[in-house]
């Protein structure tokens, strides 16, 4: 599944922000705590030095208990062997708070008179925990705000930067090879975009040349075939006038006649396709669909009689269209012909017009039609000799040319083609 570019950047940004939070938050907490403890330790050492320098010389073993009584944070204890300056965490029970309070304590061996003692000094960490949490919380808020603002700005910038890209993208999507002049790419001051535009323009130009060459080839080939077909047709017309034609020869001639007629139809249809592809969007007039259909029906009813096919029409709305009338006539005659050709004896054809939709349904042989290849050139539905595989391709071309849409469905033994105008 592909995602939108903007969503992708947003997603990456969000993941990035969460990762930063998860990684940075503990690091920050640990670091700021370490800094604070470090600071406390230094203070403890200061206290000790201050004591050793100012108090210790005045202290004697006699006034030791008095000194201890007057000091709460500093005490002199009985000696036990320790290294110099040991700093550690400890807890004391607070009478005021009625709970254990965390402390940082320093112990160092001292000498009073001839005897060894241990000097301890401590600082409560009770306040500091709160402080660290407050700092961390503030930090969180700042980081969050920063990330949000940054995110919004990145988003805004992305939208602005990618805007010409999306505009051009929409043009590429709407682009049709038979109409290359409609591409007006937006120039930007971003080198990569301009390079992309340039290469796409080049690509389109090349493709257009190839397309145009191919179209011209088909057109020229079909045109060139007209003359030999004309000669062939003429010779058969002459040959048919001979009075000494036998039954067998007559049958051969009939089959030749049918073949040449088929070849001629095929050729005319190729010419028609190439004419539509040339997209001569001139001679556009406004008219009613009904008017075209009625004109065509008159002719096709006669064709339908041969198979005893019943044609009914339900025209429930008026559809006005602006298009090339000739092409529109060809569109409907191809659809009608299709409905007759692939119908059964005593079959039905119904024409529905409702809102902006027109549906032509016909009874016919069972439905194993690949609808996706139905409108391709030379994709034959049945193995019968009927049709040359170009009729529906022409229909599709005309529908595309006018930006209409066509769909095929098979329901209740009815083959239906629906055109939405």
């Amino acid at each position, binding site marked *: 599944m592909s995602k939108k570019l903007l969503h992708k950047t947003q997603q990456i940004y969000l993941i990035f922000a969460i990762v930063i939070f998860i990684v940075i938050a503990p690091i920050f907490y640990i670091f700021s705590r370490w800094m604070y403890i470090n600071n406390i330790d230094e203070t403890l050492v200061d206290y000790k030095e201050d004591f050793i320098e100012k108090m210790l010389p005045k202290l004697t073993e006699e006034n030791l208990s008095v000194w201890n009584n007057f000091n709460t944070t500093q005490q002199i204890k009985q000696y036990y062997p320790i290294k110099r300056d040991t700093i550690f965490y400890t807890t004391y029970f607070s009478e005021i708070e009625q709970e254990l309070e965390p402390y940082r304590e320093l112990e160092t061996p001292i000498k009073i008179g001839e005897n060894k003692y241990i000097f301890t000094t401590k600082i409560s960490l009770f306040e500091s925990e709160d402080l660290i949490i407050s700092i961390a919380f503030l930090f969180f808020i700042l980081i969050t705000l920063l990330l949000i603002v940054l995110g919004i700005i990145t988003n805004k910038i992305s939208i602005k930067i990618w805007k010409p890209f999306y505009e051009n993208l929409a043009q590429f999507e709407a682009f049709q090879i038979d109409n290359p002049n409609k591409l007006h790419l937006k120039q930007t001051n971003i080198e990569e975009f301009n390079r992309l535009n340039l290469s796409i323009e080049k690509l389109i130009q090349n493709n257009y040349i190839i397309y145009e060459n191919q179209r011209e080839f088909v057109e020229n080939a079909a*045109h060139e075939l007209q003359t030999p*077909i*004309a000669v062939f047709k003429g010779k058969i*017309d002459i040959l048919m006038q001979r009075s000494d034609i036998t039954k067998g020869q007559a049958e051969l*001639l*009939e089959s030749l006649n049918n073949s040449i007629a088929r070849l*001629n*139809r095929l050729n005319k249809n190729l010419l028609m396709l190439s004419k539509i592809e040339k997209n001569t969007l001139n001679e556009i007039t406004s008219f009613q669909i009904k008017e075209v259909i009625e004109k065509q029906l008159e002719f096709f009813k006669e*064709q339908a009689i041969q198979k005893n096919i019943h044609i009914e029409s339900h025209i429930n709305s008026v559809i006005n269209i602006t298009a090339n009338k000739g092409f529109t006539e060809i569109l409907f005659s191809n659809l009608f012909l299709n409905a007759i050709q692939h119908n059964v004896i005593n079959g039905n054809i119904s024409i529905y017009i409702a809102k902006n939709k027109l549906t032509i349904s016909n009874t016919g042989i069972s439905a194993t039609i690949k609808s996706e290849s139905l409108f391709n050139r030379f994709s034959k539905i049945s193995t019968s000799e009927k049709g040359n595989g170009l009729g529906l391709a022409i229909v599709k071309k005309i529908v595309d040319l006018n930006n209409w849409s066509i769909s095929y469905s098979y329901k209740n033994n009815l083959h239906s083609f629906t055109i939405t105008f």
Partner: protein
Amino acid sequence: MKLLLIEDEQELAKSIQEYLNGNEFVCEWTNKFSTALDKISNYDYDCILLDLMLPDGNGLELLTELKKQNKTDGVIIISAKETLDSRIEGFNLGADDYLTKPFHLSELLVRIQALIRRKQFSGNNIVTFNEIEIDLQSKTVKVNHKLVEMTKKEIDLLLYLIGNHNRVLSKGAIAEHLSGDMADMLDNHDFVYAHIKNLKKKLKSANAVDYIKTVYGLGYKWQNE
């Protein structure tokens, strides 16, 4: 009637000549623009059949030349090129009809006949074949001076058959004639049979001779007995 055929495809020209020469027509042929130019300056033709793409010139210039010389020869363009532009340009330059290749020779013949009729008779325009009379103006048919009800299509078919009398006409050719622009699409010519049958019936009930003969495997023929 004198016709001039300007066509560079020799085999097609031969077929056209052969088909037309049997009728009341004398058909001259040239495959060169220059010869054609000489001929139209020196002679008057009832009808000129003009191919647009000639090896030494454009057929349309010949139309300009005709106009310049104030000639009133009828011109039918026969071209493999069928674009609306060339059609409009042809008509604007004074062509009377436009037939796209490939065509049936029988179609060409009735087009020539129609053109000559238009050029020769102004107003009273009646085609007669023995006891049958077709009034093109009022679109009516009389057999032995008695009116016979006929549809537009039946009159069209009748004219086509009479125009090509004593010629074998294939079902395909008749179908193409009757269906006009739609002709390229049809692959079923059975409807021709129905039309022929109706026409035969109407002519028979009006006591006309049964001119329409079925030619086995080939089609139909209007035969003057």
